[in-house]
């Protein structure tokens, strides 16, 4: 029994150590001479930048040795750990769109890019996207890699079967509001019974919240997730569920659902096109893109930042602005489906060409105008944390048939509690 007790103690200790040990593991993955101004390191994740553009950047900046690390796993956690010491921190790093807000309170860990040349470039980039990386006192900590302007992806063939409009312009015009969209969904489901309109109601909620100018917390740090704009988003999201046009997919069966025709439409960001074409190569040519019902919305889109410990912030920003110049952004769109943040790129051939997966449709005609009209909303550092219960409760409606009003009450109660824990008023 000695063995069992020792093992028990170890295992118990392991449980409690999970936090510290996980954090400790992240540090060793990269070494960089942070104080060295000639050797710069760049961290990004697979697919976060165009590998070809990054490769060319190494050649273009011949005076600098640029060492790139494609960091796998939980990127934010590794970056948090890396930032703790100058030796382990990168000189340039990617920050994912969903994480940027949580880095803003620690803006002093990053170089204000306006002090190293970004101020001149700012007008060429989408202002609403730059605002996501700007602190309330005006520091810019990240330069935008890409955005995720949202649209409706729909199956033209299934729409034709249901007698719905099939031309993207007509679809955009006739499915202009969420109610129009749901009505079309009912017809679609009636004509093709195995086909549903939306994959889950959480995706609708995401879109509607993104269409607003306010999120879950306001600029004064007050919780506003119980107010009308969120309640409206919630009510809108629940509609497809009550209408029976929700496929309720919350697991890994999404791929099969897309390829099998279970989903007649997908609402998602420009980069979602890649998900669809990867999941359902057999449906090539059957999909089209139309404007999102209810107006433009954004989902995701990352940044490049320069940690304060960087050995050469000026040169680091030169590299960033080169990688994210309009021409290279257009290449990034071709290579990695990164939708450009500089509107100048929207006129380049890489974006204006037709997309064979969408039957040759010039998708920029939908995404381009949407990208420039996305509403500016303040996203608080705790926004993602506070919004989580709403998504969980929406899945409870789908999974357990929980009463939507009760689910709303629970979501608000939990969100308030998280807000309190996160220091939101």
């Amino acid at each position, binding site marked *: 029994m*000695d063995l069992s007790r020792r093992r028990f103690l170890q*295992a118990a200790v392991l449980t409690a150590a999970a936090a510290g040990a996980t954090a400790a593991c992240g540090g060793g993955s990269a070494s960089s001479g942070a104080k060295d101004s000639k050797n710069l390191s760049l961290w990004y994740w697979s697919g976060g930048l165009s590998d070809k553009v990054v490769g060319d950047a190494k050649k273009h900046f011949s005076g600098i040795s640029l060492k790139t690390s494609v960091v796998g796993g939980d990127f934010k956690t590794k970056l948090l750990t890396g930032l703790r010491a100058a030796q382990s921190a990168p000189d340039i790093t990617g920050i994912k769109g969903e994480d940027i807000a949580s880095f803003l309170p620690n803006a002093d860990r990053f170089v204000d890019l306006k002090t190293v040349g970004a101020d001149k470039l700012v007008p060429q980039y989408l202002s609403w996207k730059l605002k996501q990386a700007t602190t309330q006192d005006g520091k810019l900590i990240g330069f935008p890699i890409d955005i995720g302007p949202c649209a409706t992806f729909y199956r033209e063939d299934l729409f034709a079967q249901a007698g719905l409009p099939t031309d993207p312009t007509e679809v955009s015009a006739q499915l202009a509001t969420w109610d129009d969209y749901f009505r079309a969904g009912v017809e679609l489901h009636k004509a093709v019974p195995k086909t549903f309109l939306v994959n889950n109601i959480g995706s609708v909620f995401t879109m509607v919240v993104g269409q607003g100018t306010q999120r879950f917390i306001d600029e004064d740090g007050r919780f506003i997730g119980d107010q009308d704009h969120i309640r409206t988003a919630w009510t809108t999201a629940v509609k497809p569920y009550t209408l029976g046009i929700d496929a309720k997919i919350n*697991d890994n069966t999404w791929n099969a659902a897309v390829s099998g025709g279970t989903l007649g439409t997908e609402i998602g960001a420009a980069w979602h096109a890649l998900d669809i074409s990867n999941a359902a190569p057999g449906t090539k040519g059957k999909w089209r893109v139309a404007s999102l019902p209810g107006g433009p919305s954004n989902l995701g889109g990352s940044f490049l930042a320069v940690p304060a410990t960087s050995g050469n912030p000026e040169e680091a920003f030169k590299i960033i602005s080169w990688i994210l110049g309009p021409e290279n952004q257009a290449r990034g769109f071709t290579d990695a489906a990164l939708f450009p943040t500089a509107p100048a790129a929207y006129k380049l051939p890489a974006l204006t060409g037709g997309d064979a997966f969408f039957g040759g449709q010039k998708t920029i005609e939908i995404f381009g105008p949407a990208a420039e009209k996305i509403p500016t909303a303040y996203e608080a550092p705790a926004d993602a944390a506070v919004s989580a219960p709403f998504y969980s409760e929406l899945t409870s409606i789908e999974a357990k048939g929980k009463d939507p009003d009760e689910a709303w009450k629970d979501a608000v109660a939990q969100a308030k509690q998280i807000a309190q824990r996160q220091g939101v008023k």
Partner: protein
Amino acid sequence: MSSSPVAGPAPTGPTSGTGTGATGRHAPDRPHGPGRRAPRIRPVSAGARRGPRRRVARYWPQYLAISPYYVIFTVFMLFPVLYTVFLAFQKWDGIGDMHFVGFQQFRFLWDDPVFWLSVRNTLVIWVLSTVPMLFMALVLAVLVNSTKRLTAFYRVALFIPSITSLVAVAIFFGAVFSNNFGLINAILRALHLSAVPWMSNEWTIKLVISALMTWQWTGYNAIIYLAGLQAIPSELYEAARMDGAGPVRIFRSITIPLLRPIILFTVVISTVTGLQSFTEPQVLFGSEAATNPNSGGPGQAGLTTLLYFYHQAFDNNDFGYGAAIVWAFFLLILLIVVINWRLVQRKERRS
């Protein structure tokens, strides 16, 4: 030397002492405390101060040889563990300043319905996996023990699941139990039965996670039981058969009592590992999602406590709260282990 600094006050008693090796192994009825402890403790008090120090000096190569483990343990285990104690009383987002908040994180924890939901989920999944797992393991071990042919093959076959990558297994189970396109539902449909929404019902989600854990660890426990079974002298079985005992009687009166220490071991280990289920729900229910990752699937039915801890610490950057969650959960595991220990031991005393 045991890792007692943290778990030292565990009221699991003096039964196992601080001995490291084969002490007490030979005594099947394992006398409690005093009898065994006395001769080992004596020299320390008698031999004055210099005793232990001289021993360290004399045996330094041996101490040096075992030191890497303890150094690594201290740096990567002990320090982080103690650090989480400190963290549980702070509010910290990972890189900014820490603020001391006293017991506030634990007050939040007490009022947090999601934490209690995660504890309930964890306990249900644990019971649903551990009970059938240990039962089947015992049956398998007895079966393998009674065969004479292909024993090596059976042993390897039993062990393979436990060395299979957990992530791969979870993805595989996710595909097998998939609502619309899974193997199980395809079979059910072929038999003209209605398909079960395995991955969206709050109970079937727990069943799938439990099935995964059962599949993975049954063989491992069976191997341990098998080792225990083979240590039982065959004379006992022969004698029992001479006395006219049937297989069931033999199993109940000889196998089970003599296997009891092994059963206790597997119960404790399964409790500790079973309550730590984390990867299974994390892989099964989209950890990659940008919105609301690691939420434990539909209705949060697969949200185990460790997954919740991970979500709070690493998705929400609330490291203080995360630390509070794991410490509260540690105490819970400790409590359950103690209960298990007492239960199994009482039976032992009675027999």
